[in-house]
């Protein structure tokens, strides 16, 4: 959550930029009516619409997905005009990764960064309550929940963080044009590398049984692909071909097809995945897909010493090799 002062400052600079014609529109989050604890992506094009923009611990969607190739939200720009966007830590890494692969023209963007206080998993909050939520507010340490049956509850915020936010080391947005003042509460962090090492020490058969029992629930709805900021083949995705070769992939019927689909998705992302966790968030069957991406992130970091999305120049490891490798040293 943002303090009133920062929110007013943020809206003021966006309004000024829209009025002066510096930007054609601004992509941010807005609250959704009748859906407490949810926000959605929104493009403000007039100063009045800017008053709808918010940023709080429920702003979970990764906006850089909308600037890639998949869904292009940028309207037509006049010469010298830019398009504004607000990013938190994980969004900024995905934006940088797409800039490094020339999928986004960084010169057309005016990026405002925030220091992310961590997001709240609203489904986790809902699962612990008897009734549905009517209204939810966050004061930094406590969640004040008002329920439909009239009861009220105060929940400790640290129990309801999204797991991906607890392991995220990049709270502050990287390489932005303007960084909003840091007045948000700090989030707890845990060492995910240590956790990953202890996970990888388990026997392979145990890990295999767990992940396959989870993946067998997959219905191949492709929500993980649609939510992924790194997947940018907009119309050329093999899964969208109207006539799939029948024995090659059968949608949602056999485990072999499910595993092949996930292999295609995660092999394409194997050296570019920034571990933003959007696939696990989008999954309607709550499959822990973050287990797969975390192993890939660990592999990329330990083998090639590369963290995707930390630079807008670096090539990804699968597009490179070193001279020492050729000489067999």
């Amino acid at each position, binding site marked *: 959550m943002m303090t009133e002062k920062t929110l007013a400052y943020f809206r003021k600079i966006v309004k000024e930029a829209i009025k002066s014609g510096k930007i054609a529109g601004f992509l941010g989050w807005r609250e959704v009516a009748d859906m407490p604890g949810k926000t959605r992506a929104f493009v403000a094009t007039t100063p009045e619409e800017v008053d709808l923009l918010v940023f709080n611990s429920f702003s979970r969607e990764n906006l850089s997905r909308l600037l890639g190739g998949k869904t292009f939200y940028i309207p037509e720009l006049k010469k010298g005009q830019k398009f504004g966007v607000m990013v938190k830590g994980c969004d900024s890494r995905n934006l940088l990764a797409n800039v490094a692969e020339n999928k986004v023209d960084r010169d057309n963007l005016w990026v405002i960064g925030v220091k992310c206080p961590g997001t709240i998993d609203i489904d986790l909050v809902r699962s612990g309550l008897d009734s549905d939520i009517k209204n939810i507010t966050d004061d930094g340490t406590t969640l004040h929940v008002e329920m439909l049956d009239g009861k009220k509850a105060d929940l400790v915020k640290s129990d309801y963080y999204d797991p991906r936010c607890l392991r995220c080391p990049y709270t502050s947005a990287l390489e932005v044009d303007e960084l909003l003042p840091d007045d948000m509460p700090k989030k707890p962090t845990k060492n995910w590398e240590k956790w990953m090492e202890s996970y990888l020490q388990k026997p392979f058969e145990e890990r295999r049984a767990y992940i396959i029992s989870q993946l067998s629930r997959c219905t191949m709805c492709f929500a993980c692909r649609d939510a992924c900021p790194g997947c940018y083949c907009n119309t050329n995705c093999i899964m969208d071909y109207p006539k799939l070769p029948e024995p090659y992939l059968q949608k949602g019927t056999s485990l*072999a097809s499910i595993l092949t689909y996930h292999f295609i998705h995660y092999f394409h992302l194997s050296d570019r995945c920034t571990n933003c966790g959007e696939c696990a968030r989008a999954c309607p069957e709550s499959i822990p897909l973050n287990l797969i991406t975390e192993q890939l992130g660990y592999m990329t970091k330990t083998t090639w010493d590369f963290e995707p999305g930390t630079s807008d120049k670096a090539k990804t490891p699968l*597009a490179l090799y070193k001279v020492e*490798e050729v000489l067999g040293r």
Partner: protein
Amino acid sequence: MPSIEDLPIKRKIIVFHCESALKGKDLENHKDKFPEVGFVKLSCTGRLNPVVAFKALVEGVGAIIIYGCPLNDCHNFDGNMFAKRRVFAAQSVAEALGVDPERLSYVQKDPLDYGVLTREISAMKRKLDSMGVEA
């Protein structure tokens, strides 16, 4: 709902080889020695999409061997170096998805040692034996 029993393993080995690394008399000798092994010719191992290899693994092929040119001697300049990294990434994804990564291997021809591929095929057969795969 599909279950873990839907992934049977058959006693079948496929070698994807570079057309420059394995050809002529060498290829015929290998085919005579291992009549049950399938040999698939590629222009370059750097052009193999690992999805093809993974698809074969989950459809029941026991093991996949990718056989490329020697280090520093690729017919297409640097295709084998990309293949090496790509197969490593494919193994990592396969492990994360619950498919044994040791069933997919990448070996390179050695100009001083003509037994590399024979030894690798024998090792894969022993691995399938130890996994309890029946004929």
